[in-house]
């Protein structure tokens, strides 16, 4: 309890009036600069809270009178960055992917931009830098189902593969030889043995020779007589040891019986044309481009 304020004899300072067991507290106020800084901080906090997003609510929050938002700032800076390269971007908009590739400056910009587009949209299935995943093709090798030229890649990205909402989508439908009872299980086993011979994984056997005849009648129309594939139909080559759905005999039998039909979205409906051009050029640059 404050008692009486008095002047301390030794220091000459006033006491606060507080006393505990005879010990009196001297009144040494904080330095003025400290107090002023403290008040300035309070004022700053109040002004900040009014200007910027501050108070949370149940459904939203107080946006502040400046309506500042980091999301909008980001959108703005993306726009600004695009505006900075407006000359390159307008040039690319009117050019084909091959024309862009022929211009080193455009190509460099497009490949760098394509890398970001790829990482955000494609890498989740195709792997970083197109390194592939089980059931999703590697884009860094030289095997292409639908063609590895820039224009081919551009078209594939734009319309997707077996994309239900795009009329121009790349589409192939391998018959369900087993499920639809076109071939018997034994025949499928024979043809699988032949496919492994075509891929130089096994030596010819009685089984594979039986399979060769079945292959000629049922598979060669699309995959070619020697299993060399046909890009127009999206029929993969069977000779190169690169397998989208694995190359064991069981896996081949499975694919012939009830084929997996992988799908890729038509990115033309999700990305703008410039991004698709850029990502096509990036994919082409991964090492397998033709």
């Amino acid at each position, binding site marked *: 309890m404050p008692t009486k304020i008095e002047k301390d004899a030794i*220091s000459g300072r006033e006491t606060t009036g507080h006393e505990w067991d005879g010990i009196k507290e001297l009144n040494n106020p904080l330095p003025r600069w400290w107090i002023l800084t403290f008040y300035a901080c309070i004022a700053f906090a109040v002004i900040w809270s009014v200007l910027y997003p501050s108070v949370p609510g149940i459904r939203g929050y107080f946006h502040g009178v400046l309506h500042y938002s980091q999301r909008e700032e980001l959108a703005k800076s993306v726009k600004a960055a695009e505006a900075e390269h407006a000359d390159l971007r307008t040039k690319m908009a009117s050019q084909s992917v091959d024309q862009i590739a022929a211009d080193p400056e455009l190509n460099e910009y497009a490949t760098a931009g394509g890398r970001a587009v790829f990482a955000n949209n494609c890498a989740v299935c195709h792997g970083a830098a197109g390194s592939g995943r089980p059931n999703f093709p590697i884009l860094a090798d*030289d095997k292409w189902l639908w063609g590895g030229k820039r224009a081919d890649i551009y078209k594939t990205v734009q319309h997707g593969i077996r994309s239900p909402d795009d009329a121009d989508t790349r589409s192939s439908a391998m018959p369900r030889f087993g499920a639809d009872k076109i071939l018997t299980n034994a025949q499928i086993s024979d043809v699988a043995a032949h496919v492994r011979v075509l891929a*130089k994984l096994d030596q010819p056997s009685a089984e594979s020779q039986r399979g060769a005849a079945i292959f000629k009648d049922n598979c060669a129309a699309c995959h070619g007589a020697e299993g060399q594939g046909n890009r127009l139909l999206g029929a993969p080559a069977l000779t190169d*040891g690169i397998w989208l759905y694995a190359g064991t005999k069981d896996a081949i039998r499975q694919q012939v019986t009830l084929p997996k039909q992988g799908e890729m979205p038509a990115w033309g409906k999700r990305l703008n044309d410039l991004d698709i051009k850029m990502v096509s050029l990036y994919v082409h640059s991964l*090492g*397998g481009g033709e």
Partner: protein
Amino acid sequence: MNPTLTTDEPPKLRPAHLRAPSTDTHGDQFYADRVRVYPASVTGIVRRVKWALLVWCLTVYYVIPWVRWTRGPGLPDQAVLMDIAGRRAYLFDLVIWPQQIYLLTGALILGAVGLFFVTSLFGRVWCGYFCPQTVWTDLFMWVERQLEGDANQRRKRDEGPTSFDKVWRKTAKHSLWLAIAFMTGGAWIMYFVDAPTLVHEFWAGQAETATYFFVGLFTATTYLLAGWAREQVCTYMCPWPRFQSAMFDDQTLAVSYRAWRGEARGKHKTGDSWLGRGDCVDCFRCVSVCPTGIDIRDGMQLECIGCGLCVDACNSVMEKVGRPTGLITWDTASGLAAATAGRHVPYRLLRPRTIMYAGLLSVVLVAVGVATLVRERLDLSVERDRTPNFVALSNGAIRNGYTLRLENRTTEPASFALTLDGLAEATLKFGTVGADAARLEVPANQVATFRLFVQAPKTALHNQSTPIKLTIVDDAHGRRETESSVFVGPASLGHATGE
């Protein structure tokens, strides 16, 4: 705490630090208030040398950014330029890359050791003549003198009431100071951005915000430090005076009062005898001209910047009273001690300390020189792709991807040929448009990045990882560099399977 004051000296001429320190309300003495120094003007040989060096220093500072230097197309043509945005430092024909920043560090060490060496020989010549703080303070004091007159006039006007005369002179002085400070700050920025471009952009309002900020910052610091803070910078802010005594020995030249000659000091009237007294007539001229407001007769002091203006002041007085000059002059501690004992010792240039500093200086000089001469003009770095680690191709071959970074640290474009060793039957293909193994073009002073695909048949691989060496050769300049890397294949090498 309270230094004793002699009673016979006029109070206004007391050295600043001897004046009574302030007290708080309880009588405790903590800090001395700053007492403004009013240095009087002085003429003489030292002052003339100081003017000459001032003009020289300022000329060098303002002119260097404007010196042009042809380096070739696409390269800046400014002789001295610290291009922070472009990550290069240009010093005439020397172009320093970020990796070679140690050359600039070496230059700083050279400067430091050089400073130690000169200090051990001649004391604080840096402080007195070359330090920017001294140079700009001197310039600001000159401006002040032109507008407000000499010391006594200035003091009288400052102590007097506000008048039109006082206001316009002060306003003019501060405007001029700010103008000089602005030019100082502006010139400093020119060392970092191309000078002619900068001047144009600056006035057109197109320069970067950082440019305006730094010009403002250096304008403010110049104005405050040279106009207002002055000797306080040397006494309180600068670390150099605090440890420069470590470079001193009793053979170091320093501005000294020859007490053996000057004492006993006292007033002297024309016609009085000089017998039984010293040459010092106690006129306080040395104190009144001192830019840091000290009395040199008190001996060596922290505040003394060694400018020697008191030497000029004392010499003119000695000439007037008909005594030999040099009562205040550059002398050594041992010289003073010997003279007091009536002997004479010669000044020794060669001493363990100076020999050591000279030796250190030569070592650093040689090290920096050699490092500059043998610096890398070319650098190759090889980064192997990790995703995908390797790619199996349709013909059964294995392919690895690499990113090559070629740094051409010269001011001429260069062309390199690439060879690969350690991998039989390897074929090289570039993913970069226009590049091939016989010809990798790198523009002058730039880094070029190339995508390289190396392909080898599985039969050529005996291990999962094969060490390889990539060598680039520039025949035109006789340069070559080799980098090691590896070529990676599947773990199951040699066992062809369908999986």
